[in-house]
């Protein structure tokens, strides 16, 4: 099965920030996106990159509920399990 790890998530988030996101240096998983300097457009870009890299279809309603990195991690993990 395809794994989705914290490192994978961090890679995606960095891609959405042109490789520089100082807020990802420490514990970031449970911090809401706005506090990590990821605005709603950046979260949409994260969803776009996830769709490209993991061949998922993420509906707009689901994107609206992706409020922190932990939520994204759990969401993607669950969706990948479903598709096994």
């Amino acid at each position: 099965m395809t794994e989705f790890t914290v490192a994978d998530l961090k890679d995606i988030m960095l891609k959405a920030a042109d490789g520089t996101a100082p807020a990802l240096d420490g514990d970031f998983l449970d911090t809401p996106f706005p506090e990590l300097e990821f605005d709603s457009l950046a979260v949409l870009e994260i969803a776009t990159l996830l769709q490209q890299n993991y061949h998922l279809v993420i509906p707009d309603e689901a994107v609206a509920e992706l409020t922190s990195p932990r939520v994204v991690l759990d969401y993607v993990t669950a969706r990948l399990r479903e598709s096994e």
Partner: protein
Amino acid sequence: MTGAVVTGLGVASPNGVGTEEYWRATLEGRSGIRPIRLFDAAPYPVRLAGEVDFDAEAYIPGKFRAQTDQMTQLAMAATVMAFADAGLDPAGMPAFEMGVTVANSSGGIMFGQRELQQLWSQGPTYVSAYMSVAWFYASTAGQLSIRHGMKGPALVLASEQAGGLDAVGHARRQIRCGTPLMVTGGSDASLAPVGLAFQIATGMLSTRRDPSRAYLPFDRDANGYLPGNGGAILVLEDADAAEARGVPGVYGEIAGYAATFDPPLDDGEPGPDTAAYDPPRGSGRSPRLRRAAELALADAGVAPGDIDVVFADAWGLPALDWEEARAITELFGPRGVPVTAPKTMTGRLYAGAALDLVTALLSIRDGVIPPTLNVTEPAPGTDLDLVLREPRRRTVRHALVLARGLGGFNSAIVVSAPTTHARSST
């Protein structure tokens, strides 16, 4: 009414990133015109342009880099410089007392082309979410407002090359309406394959391969212009507010501004024969460019004899050069005022023409007029006192800056020496 004074400058230009780097290069006659390197220009008839060597990471956080085209990044870098130069930290300022009016004409064309290629080659899933904002003309105004927490008026003006002046004229109006600080100027980055193709279609670009013989405004060998990427940002403040905060120095005042608009000619398609920058030939009406200059002088309350230098629009096409030369000589008399076009070292920057305002303010500060590069033999009938080859020492109290935009835009600004807190040369 108190004046609108310029208290900070920022420059990202093909011949220098940073105000002093740009100014040194300009006085020394160092050009930023080179063969295009941003993409393979071999299939195109135009091979030369002014590109900006520019480290976006030095000025712009990752979040904003990812969301923006170079046209926005050039303005963001220049804004960081301009705030530092003005001795201001926007984070410590009241959000609604700062606004932004910038000009843009190219849109985020490099970003847009990349994403459209993704769309057609791989499908909609492969288009960045950032495409939704990055291509847009207003992106620069919006991102500057977001980054620096400026919640006053935020606006973009799109009037091609004239926009670089129109934005500053509009920012002055916002100051008069009660916003004490405006970030203003303009930037463009038109150099992508599709952007170059659009420009070539006007028939106005030089196709020469020799950087020293391509863009030659007012020369008898004028054969078109070269485009450049770049931007310039000015911090404009209400003079009393600047004084009250203890401003470190003032470059000058935006003393007069006016814009005029030409009627359409012929079929309205762009090009050297059809773009009207004065009324139709033979119509007998007063030329619009001259009218813009006259109105700007009147707005500043100065006479032609008070103007110490004219920074010309300098389109680089014989008919348009002749029309501008005529407007200048009608206003100032034959060889009546020094005229210069330092944009011969950068190419025409479109909205980045705000750079000419920066250059005029530096001329005021240092008492020197930068040269027009590469022009050797002024065209017959252009009876101008062109500053050629070498900079010219001269006390500059008032400078007139002219700009025209494809489609009939004419704009003029008078910048005047500060009455107090004048900047000294660094």
